[in-house]
């Protein structure tokens, strides 16, 4: 059952259509990637899901019921891209304050914060002030305050920016752990290698519209160009075949594109018949990065989005 269903969401500002008719579902327990270039409307979309903005049109269904910002906020943890903390406040108090705003009681919040601080090796921080923390450290604190109240839906906007690889891995493991325990995670970023690593399902938005929607595997399959990598002991005398084109040849490493109507076995047969020893063979799937660039650049003025009149 989907935890979150968005239907025909629209949000227009005075000068542009920030979100222009977007619909998708997010399955409970999945890690969902929301991708898009700068200014694609991701933040506006996330703000509607967190109840900060009301959509102009369309409906949001949360956990089987119509989304009710006032009550459902308790079950959502949102870590915005633009995030900060009160500089002069002690870290423990700050975490307590944010947890209490989410509706936890003081004692409940204290217990949970202590648990998380131990888990992420932050016990000694309690009485320190935020201004004493490095950027990475405050990032960790923000992550803790986002997931502390055990939300059903966790929204992370660029959660790894500013984190070193060690801490990034620590947070990544926590994200997997949370998903395993049943939380649904929306993950928004431009860093495609992270998306490939973490997400089950992605949606790509651009200029306020959805342009891709599917599992990572399926999208890669959809965009594959039947490219294969082949490494042989030595190049055969006759390289050309009706089954494939040679895209590139570098010593004994070949990149081949299989033609319509042929299978990978046809390709292999061609080499085996000639008595060539095959050292390695695998399909080259496009990276999400390539798909992203191709799709986004396909639409003009993608990177810096032009303002468009609403009534066009």
């Amino acid at each position, binding site marked *: 059952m989907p935890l979150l269903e968005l239907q025909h969401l629209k949000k227009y500002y005075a000068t542009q259509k920030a979100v222009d008719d977007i619909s998708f579902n997010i399955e409970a327990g999945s890690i969902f990637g929301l991708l898009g270039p700068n200014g694609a409307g991701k933040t506006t979309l996330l703000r509607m899901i967190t109840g900060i903005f009301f959509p102009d049109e369309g409906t949001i269904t949360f956990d089987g019921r119509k989304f009710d910002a006032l009550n459902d906020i308790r079950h959502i943890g*949102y870590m915005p891209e633009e995030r900060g903390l009160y500089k002069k406040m002690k870290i423990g108090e700050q975490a307590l304050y944010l947890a209490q705003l989410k509706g936890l009681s003081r004692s409940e919040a204290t217990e949970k914060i202590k648990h998380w601080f131990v888990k992420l090796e932050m016990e000694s921080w309690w009485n320190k002030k935020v201004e004493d923390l490095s950027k990475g450290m405050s990032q960790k604190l923000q992550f803790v305050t986002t997931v502390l109240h055990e939300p059903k839906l966790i929204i992370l906007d660029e959660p790894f920016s500013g984190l070193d690889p060690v801490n990034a891995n620590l947070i990544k493991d926590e994200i997997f752990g949370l998903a395993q325990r049943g939380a649904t995670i929306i993950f928004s970023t431009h860093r495609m290698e992270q998306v490939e690593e973490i997400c089950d399902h992605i949606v790509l938005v651009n200029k306020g519209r959805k342009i891709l929607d599917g599992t990572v595997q399926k999208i890669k399959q959809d965009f594959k160009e039947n490219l294969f990598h082949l490494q042989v002991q030595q190049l055969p005398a006759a390289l050309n075949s009706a089954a494939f084109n040679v895209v590139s040849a570098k010593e004994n490493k070949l990149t081949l594109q299989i033609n319509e109507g042929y299978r990978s076995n046809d390709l292999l047969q061609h080499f085996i018949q000639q008595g060539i020893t095959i050292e390695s063979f695998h399909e080259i799937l496009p990276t999400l990065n390539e798909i992203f660039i191709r799709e986004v650049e396909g639409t003009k003025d993608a990177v810096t989005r032009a303002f468009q009149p609403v009534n066009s």
Partner: protein
Amino acid sequence: MSKTLIIIKREYLTRVSNKTFLLTTILTPLLFVVLIAGTTYLSIKGKETLSVAVADSNGFFKNNLKSGKSVKFDFPDGVDTTNYLAKGYSAILLIPKVDSNSKTNYIIRSKKGIGIAAKSSIEDRVNSAIEDHMLQMAGVKRDALDSIHNEAQQGQLISLQEKGDSATESNQGLAYGIGYASGFLIYITMFIYGIMLMRGVMEEKTNRIAEVVISSVKPFQLMLGKIIGIGAVGLTQFLLWVVLIIVLYNGAQMFISPETMQQVQAMQQGGGMSANSAQASEAAQKIYQFKHLMNTANWFTIIGCFIFYFIGGYLFYASLFAAAGSAVEDVQNSQSLTMPITMPIIFSFIIMTTAINNPDSSVAVWASIIPFSSPIVMMARVAYGVPGTVPYWQLILSMASLVIGFLFTTWVAGKIYRTGILMYGKKTTWKEMIKWAFAKY
């Protein structure tokens, strides 16, 4: 509602537990005392005695022209406009022959300019000298004249105000003082706490914490929590000052025994001098007079009104400051946005200074009803008495319009705040803010 409470608690506690809060709470009244004492001292010390040589061609001024604290007259021989400076005088008064039927012009010459106060003092003294001289010419004896002068000082004007069947003693000087002080206090606190609130909102915006918080609470709750929390800080500070004043006031009384106090009281009421009264120290008399003076004011009404207008005025302007804070990211940009807010506050202060001299003028009446200026101006009028100077209908109308006023500004500010707090990178104008305020989402 409980979330707003959590926000109020944080805003209040982080500020009250701050060292600067304690410091300003204790130092501000001290600063005021030092300031008042300093200016008083300087104004007394600054009055140098002007020594004036009199070139008197009539001869009757010598006995009649009396020197005072600020002016000293001398009648040296052979002084004229060329040598008075050399003889050590700073000015010379030339008196021509007085013709009793026409106005005479006296001339005072000096190197430095003579102040307006000194000039009128000399004028008064010369005129009374002529008066004395004329009385003597009419046959009044010199010693009779002196005793008349001494006894004529006995009159004292006590003003009473009608209050139902009886009349109570009123004191314009005290009303002036209370009105001015409370108007000034409200003026200052509206600025201090308004700016404090704006800083707080700007901090949340520039530190990017606003979005984190408003994913948990509504922007309006956050704004309201901040306004109430900081208002509570202001009220706490004010109450601490009241406690401090009461402690100091009673502390001063402790130095005088109750018997002495009773003696002073008896003396004041009896009017005559008794044998005991000599023992009563001058300080005790002063304190009695002060106490008596203080009792003429209706403190219950004044303090009640002060607290109401303090809170009402704060709420009226605070939400506007919050809205301005939500629209800017740095202090420089905030200046142009706060101008339209601070102007009416400064303007009401100016109206207050005239209202205090003339509490019944139509400007004062209207300014004390319109919520933009009522918190400051009404306090100046209330000190003169309710319902004497300020009829009940005016007070009620003023209070009601202030309540409606701050509900309106809070509502408008809430809409501006909601949009502004999440806007980054763009400089906002008032025009845009007005658009946000009346947008229909």
